[in-house]
């Protein structure tokens, strides 16, 4: 405990002193270098006196100016990340206080310290916020948006986002204006209706950053999460329109009916335009990803760039950048993921998570610092009225809308759900930045607004953020289920969809299922064909699902396998054999035959693996990816057999053989490495793909059939190796096994590259 506090204090000290150069950056003189001073006045004649004293060669110089800006930025980021680290080290703290609260508090502390030191504070630059800090968070959210629940609840989400935000803004604006009038003090005198409306439109938008930060830690069930989160994303369009609308109106001074009508039109333009821009960029990204098979390394870059361009393009036209970003991510994801390699997918995932996490941290810290910095005008009435009204309007809005929406929903929202939705309407940095953007001449009460908004943000993040978790537990709200995807559910769900579409056809009723079905058909017949490269374009969703399941299981096995217990190979092999032999008998003859056929076909495909490293390819894996499906399916069959591959024990001396070729780790391949020195662990035996054109092999030696499967497999391999090799892939013969059965025996592994000739010997060695 003492260590933790020490760590925290050290971090704080660093932050303060790191920010001192940042603070003093604004307008201060450049530090004098240690170089001999050049003449300051540029107009003096440039004659260096011939008799300048010789100076010694400077071995070590300090020149901070040239790296000042990047250095300071990097330092801030580093310190923010260290803080995040520190936050998670303290065990109990992180479960009580949501991260966002801590970060704001740290920001406050740092701001206070900087102020004490007399430096100028770094303020949250709105440009920085909107153009750099916000997009990663939104892209992360949009790219990984769970489409099915989002689509199913889209109506509800839209109603909450649009109607709810409108209600909030108008209700709060009007009542606040009334309060200002009633209050009658001089401070509030200048606040007219339009200013109030503008203020309330800023303050009523639920903030995706804050929602994400808090909801991620409480793990409520999917429906509520997607409702609040979806609302926070989609209400950006409304906020943008209202903000610009009221800003314009306030500056123009008067509002006519035409203006109102134009405002409504503007809303549709902003929302739909944003989505359109995003969709266009998403399709472009999908098309680009079709052609990246030769340059896998830069695939993630396309995803990020296209999304960012979508955001920026939308911002150019004052369309909703957030909706553009979401639309881009949603549209591009299914196609891009089908086209890119597995590594790129992982890269994208981790980069997005990293950037969004970093952005979030920085945003909250800066919020705290800006609070200390900003000029404040505190007015008790205004601020308290704002907070009360925020809560009130939210509660009323949610209750009223839910009553209306429940008439149209199949799964109704209960009172508990409504409470969480209302309580989860957190405000955050977007509101603050929008308030910051207000021009001070048109809005003399800008500071008042800023103060009020900061208070609201603090209130929602601290009070609501901290108490939502105990409330969720208290109310026993359903938590997120452990979703283990089962193929049964998937198949039956799809089947039922078809049934229902059919029954709807019988009834003559064309509900949303009908249109969804049509859209799916359109997608399958056109979009997928154009945007997905190769075989995967024909792949129905069920197959992708199935493959994904298989892959997950294989990875699970692989990971647990390589971390498995090490037991000596030889002594236990006998006992293992004995043990397994009992269960061996269950393998039917036909399964054996099938297995043999596979192995035969696989091992005939051997070729040189070119281990090239180039900037453009990590592995040569193009040909393999097509065969991945087949490979996995056969592996599945072997798994079903479930008894056979265990017996492939590798004799000890085999461990000197070349290390197992690292299995291809491209799209969906198993990630396996077997350490040559490893003792027995779960064998990862994966059969490499069998291209359909595998030549039929010569028959198996009949005497092998009598052996128990392990040796049969070994024998099979032996005969395979002998029966000649065509070109084709290097087989890595690995069978993934079920974890829980704790298979100990060794795996066969293919020899490394360039060792084709020695395969024979190695195969022979496998006879146990």
């Amino acid at each position, binding site marked *: 405990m003492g260590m933790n506090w020490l760590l925290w204090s050290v971090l704080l000290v660093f932050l303060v002193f790191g920010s001192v150069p940042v603070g003093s950056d604004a307008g201060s003189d450049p530090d004098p270098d240690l170089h001999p001073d050049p003449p300051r006045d540029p107009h003096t004649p440039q004659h260096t006196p011939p008799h300048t004293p010789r100076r010694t060669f400077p071995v070590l110089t300090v020149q901070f100016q040239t790296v000042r800006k990047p250095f300071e930025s990097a330092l801030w980021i580093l310190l923010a990340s260290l803080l995040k680290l520190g936050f998670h080290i303290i065990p109990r703290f992180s479960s009580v206080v949501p991260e966002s609260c801590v970060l704001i508090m740290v920001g406050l502390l740092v701001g206070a310290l900087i102020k004490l030191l007399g430096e100028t504070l770094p303020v949250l630059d709105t440009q920085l916020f909107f153009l750099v800090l916000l997009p990663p968070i939104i892209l992360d959210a949009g790219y990984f948006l769970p489409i099915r629940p989002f689509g199913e609840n889209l109506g509800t989400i839209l109603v909450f986002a649009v109607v709810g935000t409108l209600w909030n803004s108008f209700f709060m604006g009007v009542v606040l204006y009334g309060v200002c009038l009633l209050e009658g003090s001089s401070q509030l005198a200048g606040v007219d209706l339009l200013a109030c409306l503008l203020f309330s439109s800023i303050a009523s938008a639920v903030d995706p950053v804050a929602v994400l930060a808090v909801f991620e830690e409480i793990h409520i069930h999917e429906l509520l999460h997607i409702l609040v989160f979806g609302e926070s994303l989609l209400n950006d369009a409304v906020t943008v329109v209202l903000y610009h609308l009221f800003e314009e109106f306030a500056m123009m001074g008067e509002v006519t009916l035409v203006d109102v009508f134009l405002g409504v039109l503007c809303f549709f333009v902003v929302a739909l335009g944003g989505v359109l821009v995003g969709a266009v960029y998403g399709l472009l990204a999908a098309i680009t990803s079709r052609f990246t098979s030769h340059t896998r390394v830069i695939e993630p870059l396309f995803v990020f760039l296209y999304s960012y361009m979508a955001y920026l393009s939308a911002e150019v036209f004052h369309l909703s950048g957030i909706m553009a970003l979401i639309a881009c991510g949603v549209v591009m994801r299914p196609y891009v993921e089908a086209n890119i390699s597995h590594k790129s997918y992982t890269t994208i995932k981790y980069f997005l998570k990293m950037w969004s996490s970093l952005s979030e941290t920085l945003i909250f810290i800066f919020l705290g610092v800006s609070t200390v910095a900003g000029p404040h005008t505190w007015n008790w009435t205004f601020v308290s009225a704002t907070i009360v009204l925020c809560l009130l309007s939210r509660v009323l809005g949610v209750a009223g809308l839910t009553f209306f929406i429940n008439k149209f929903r*199949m*799964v109704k929202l209960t009172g508990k759900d409504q409470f969480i939705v209302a309580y989860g309407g957190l405000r955050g940095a977007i509101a603050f930045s929008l308030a910051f953007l207000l021009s001070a001449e048109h809005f003399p009460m800008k500071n008042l607004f800023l103060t009020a908004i900061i208070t609201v943000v603090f209130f929602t993040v601290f009070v609501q953020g901290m108490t939502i978790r105990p409330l969720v537990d208290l109310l026993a709200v359903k938590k997120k*289920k452990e979703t283990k995807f*089962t*193929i*049964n*559910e998937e*198949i*039956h*769900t*799809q*089947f*039922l*969809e*078809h*049934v*229902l*579409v*059919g*029954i*709807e*056809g*019988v*009834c*003559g*009723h064309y*509900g949303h299922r*009908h249109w969804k079905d049509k859209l799916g058909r359109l997608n399958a017949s056109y979009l997928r064909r154009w945007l997905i490269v190769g075989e995967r374009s*024909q*792949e*129905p969703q*069920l*197959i992708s699902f*199935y493959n994904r*399941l298989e892959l997950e299981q294989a990875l699970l096995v692989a990971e647990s396998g390589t971390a498995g217990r090490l037991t000596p190979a030889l002594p236990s092999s006998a006992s293992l054999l004995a043990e397994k032999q009992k269960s061996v008998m269950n393998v039917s003859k036909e399964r054996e035959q099938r297995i043999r056929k596979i192995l035969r076909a696989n091992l005939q495909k051997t070729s040189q693996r070119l281990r090239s490293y180039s900037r453009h390819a990590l592995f040569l894996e193009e040909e393999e990816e097509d065969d991945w*499906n*087949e490979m996995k*399916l*056969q592996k*599945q*069959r072997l798994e*079903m057999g479930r008894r056979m591959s265990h017996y492939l024990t590798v004799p000890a001396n085999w461990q000197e053989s070349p290390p197992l070729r690292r299995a291809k780790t491209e799209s969906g391949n198993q990630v396996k490495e077997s350490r040559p020195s490893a003792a027995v662990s779960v064998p990862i035996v994966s059969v490499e793909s069998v291209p359909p054109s595998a030549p039929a092999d010569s028959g198996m030696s009949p005497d092998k059939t009598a052996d128990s499967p392990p040796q049969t497999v070994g024998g099979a391999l032996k005969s395979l190796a002998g029966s000649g090799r065509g070109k084709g892939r290097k087989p890595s013969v690995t069978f993934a096994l079920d974890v829980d059965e704790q298979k100990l025996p060794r795996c066969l592994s293919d020899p490394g590259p360039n060792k084709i000739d020695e395969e024979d010997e190695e195969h022979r060695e496998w006879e146990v």
Partner: protein
Amino acid sequence: MGSTSSTLSKIPNADELIQETGFTSAHLARLFERFEALDKDKKGYLSPQDFEAIKELALNPICDRIIGAFFSSGQEMLDFSSFVRILAHFRPIDNNRTKEPNSPDPINSRINKLKFAFQLYDQDKDGKISRNELLQVLRAMLEKQVTEEQLESIADRTIQEADLDRDDAISFEEFRKSLEKVNIDHKMSIRFLR
């Protein structure tokens, strides 16, 4: 309202149907109109050809199974009451229905919906979904886009997942169990028929 009552009068034992299926009279009238619209030759009953004439159904991969569900006992004529009884399965579940102790479950209860779905799989009515039947369903749904081997692996895995008593087929209990996390009300109800 007038048209409803006049339509209703054309329906034999309308009250009984309303009682049994839970449809309102307005719905029943609407369904009757649909029945008559489908019955192009004005026979008074529906035949499989009438169903096949429905465009949307023809595009459906499992249309023959759906049609088969209506004409369950091999008969060629479907009268209105059977039509309505089958459609009643797809009514959303009434949560505020009082549970009378001795009455049977309504047609649209969760368990009956599942039984209906099960029958769609189990064509030979032996109470189990065999591997073959599963393969047929998969083949129909995946519409020749996949190889036989892939189908077989999927079928294998499906049975492996659901089959608890290891008889290589899925019984109704196992079927029900594998779908216990799925919101059947949502997946098997048509709001139109509420």
